[in-house]
């Protein structure tokens, strides 16, 4: 999430997002594009929902809560 890189995308796509920011619930084109790409990559399995450290932390919490042992 920290590092950002610039990419180029079609102007008509950018315009369509800009024209519908309120409907898309976002404040900027970048915010929307990142959210949509993130979802797509997660569903394809190309991004992980949790880092290994996060998954361990969540598993420990579930263990503490009694869901796992």
């Amino acid at each position, binding site marked *: 999430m920290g590092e950002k890189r610039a990419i180029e995308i079609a102007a008509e796509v950018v315009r369509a997002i800009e024209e519908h920011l309120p409907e898309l619930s976002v404040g900027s084109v970048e*915010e929307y594009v990142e959210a949509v790409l993130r979802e797509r990559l*997660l569903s394809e399995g190309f991004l992980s929902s949790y880092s290994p450290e*996060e998954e361990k932390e*969540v598993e420990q919490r579930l263990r503490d809560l009694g869901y796992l042992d």
Partner: protein
Amino acid sequence: MAVIGLDCADPNLLEELLGGLPTFRELIGGGTFSRLASVDPPITVPAWMCMFTGRDPGELGVYGFRNRADYSYGGLAVASSASFGVPAVWDELGRRGKRSILLGVPGTYPPRPVRGLMVAGPLTPNGGTNFTYPASLKHRIATWVGDYIPDVRGFRTQDKGWLIERVRGMTEQRFSLARRLLREERWDLFVMVEMGPDRIHHGLWAHHDPHHSKHDPKSPFRDAIRDYYRFLDGKLAELLSELPGGTQVLVVSDHGVQGMEGGIGINEWLIQEGYLVLRRYPERPVRLGELVEAGLVDWSRTVAWGEGGYYGRVFLNLAGREPQGIVPPERYEEIRAELAARLAAIPDEAGRPIGTRVLRPEGLYRKVRGIPPDLIVYFGDLGWRSIGTVGWRNVHLRENDTGPDEANHSHHGIFIAYPKLDDRPERSILEVHDLILSVMGDG
């Protein structure tokens, strides 16, 4: 339409406490009150997403908080929003131009784009992870309520006073955030889920329930659950006051609660009966996963192993499926039936039957996707938990393997609709999805 989810809110408990709950009383008195039959297993994940997709766990391929990602022996992965590959009711409404506010729904981390806003559920990791859609919403949340609390941390404590304060703090914050979102955002569907009832039940049930084996009538915490529900009733009243007139309100839960007598060591039993073979029995209780990682399970002689939790899962070591499977496919049904019958017959320490139910996925679900357990086990019909750790040298454990826990889930949650919808005394959690669409004019 506003859907207020209270994880683990139980119909019997609510009726017991109703005299001191004016808001619930008004909703029930002027509305519909039904028992809401949960899914199998009646567990937060997948139950809430079953409610909001109208799909059962088999159709979703999600059978618990963790699921087998592959047929390896250690391949369990925590369920996330990416695990639910079908649209939820808010996705369907979004396509029709309706905006939703979603707050704390289990199974929504990482958050996904929606027409509206999403604050992810209790599986949000600690720290500064992105937990909202849009991402910038988290900065506004920090301004409104400070550090957002997706779930109670440090639940496993003997300090009940501390736990009560933590749960109340979480509930207070979530309802405060909910009111803010309702006031400041445009919405057609509002959905929130509060985990507080579940956490207070698990932590303090014995103090409340005079029939619980650990109940102490002199406990200073004997009214903790009653007091929490009064507090919750007040929060609910504040929230309802923010809703426009004519809003259809649902107050629902994913499952109920019952006292927990103790635990059955599912892997201890499998070891004792020769179904699970270790190269070396541990000197202290450890998770089976640790033994798997250390190469201490002799898979060449293991027929089955189990997972613990509020319910049990049993996996057969099937030849051609598991890496070192030994159960011949032609004997799979025979061995599974034998295991099911023997698990169902495990008595308590005194040899008395406990009413265990053992279920087969293909008999429960409309479809079976992903990798289901071969058997789903409700020890004592969830009056006993399933303990997966080994090293206890005992099948029956009165103490939880991870610390104090006094309650387990039961099969029915609550369904309150205000204004009244009908007089049905019971309905299924899987009906809620279509009901929301119907009420919102898209049925």
